[in-house]
């Protein structure tokens, strides 16, 4: 192994023209929408000037075997079908509240913004060790809202309601 191999390959922006490659039919469904456990998560992707007005954002959900992608539309809207995952535990045995990993890619975002979506009406949120590391006044940005049907989870890259993002 050479020293050269210790240099990470840097990230570069997704660019605007990825849709024909990454967003194939069914990519937005981590589970079959007809499955009784299926939950629709919808939201709007915002930057500092408002909802993304070009279809140049990509929201990717990744939790265990669940994987889904949604390209934002001309009003910033995205939608994926997932199921609520089982709760995991930390190595020290402390329980984690159920959550979904969410990565946001976009033109003008030089690397992905990594966040988590937690579920509303979940008692375990109150004692979750990850949420405990987040400024209490910003925790709400990580918790989806119940709507009919499903859940709403807006993502703000900037602004008054800027979503909490995680280093990776």
């Amino acid at each position: 192994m050479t020293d050269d191999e210790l240099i990470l390959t840097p990230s570069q922006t997704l660019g605007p023209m990825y849709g024909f490659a990454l967003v194939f039919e069914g990519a937005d469904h981590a589970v079959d929408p007809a499955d009784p456990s299926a939950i629709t998560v919808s939201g709007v992707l915002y930057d500092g000037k408002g909802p993304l007005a070009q279809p140049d954002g990509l929201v990717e959900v990744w939790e265990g075997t669940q994987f889904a992608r949604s390209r934002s539309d001309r009003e910033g809207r995205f939608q994926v079908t997932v199921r609520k995952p089982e709760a995991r535990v930390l190595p020290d045995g402390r329980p984690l509240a159920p959550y979904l990993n969410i990565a946001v890619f976009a033109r003008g975002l030089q690397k992905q913004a990594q966040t988590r979506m937690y579920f509303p009406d979940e008692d375990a949120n109150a004692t979750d060790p990850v949420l405990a590391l987040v400024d209490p006044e910003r925790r709400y940005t990580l918790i989806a809202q119940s709507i009919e049907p499903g859940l709403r989870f807006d993502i703000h890259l900037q602004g008054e309601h800027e979503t909490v993002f995680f280093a990776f």
Partner: protein
Amino acid sequence: MSRAARPPLDFNPPYLHPEYRLTVQRAPSQRLVELPRGWFHTTPGPVFGHGAVRPGENDLTTQHEGQPIGQKIILSGRVLDSDGRPAAGTLIELWQANAAGRYLDPHDPHNLPLDPNFDGLGRCLTDSEGRYRFTTIRPAAYCGPVGTSFRPGHIHVSLIGSDLSSRLVTQCYFEGDPLIWVDHVTAGIPDPRGVERLIARHDPTTTIIGYEESALGYRWDIVLRGQTATPLDHVDDRR
């Protein structure tokens, strides 16, 4: 100290790089929350894609009846993690403009010619040694409207490895292209060694000579963030 214990050099661009204007309104402004190692970094990867890649999806020149226009190339290399281990089973998705600089994407605003024999998208999984190989054509440099500049010719690449922290979307450039060094996107990379990591080099060993089979070889190795965690750091999966 062993090499493997050294942290990798991270020349990722910052979110905010004002020279690339759109970052000003899209870069997260609040401090990122750092989780203890093992709470995040070892989240296992999805099984997505592993059953879905079909043989031949790594050859972008044989997806239609005719051959695409342009310089045919072989782009190959290895995917490693930052501990130097091969990243086997990594899903690589690739997308690019054609030899005229036009994407198939319906949102491409350019009035440049499409090539009926070239879609510009491909996929493959790395083998047990982390190796991958694509046959494609070299994409043209293109620019936006008046006031923009030509970007260096590039291929977009998405990698899904063994865990969440190795997820990478990036772009591959070509050796000898002067536009690489005057580009507002590569300029966000804080060290030229990081830019060099994104440049594919001419590779005589993969070049094919022989009339219509001919293709110019390029080598591009990729280094993903490694999994230096101990087993104790892993989050249990109690499903």
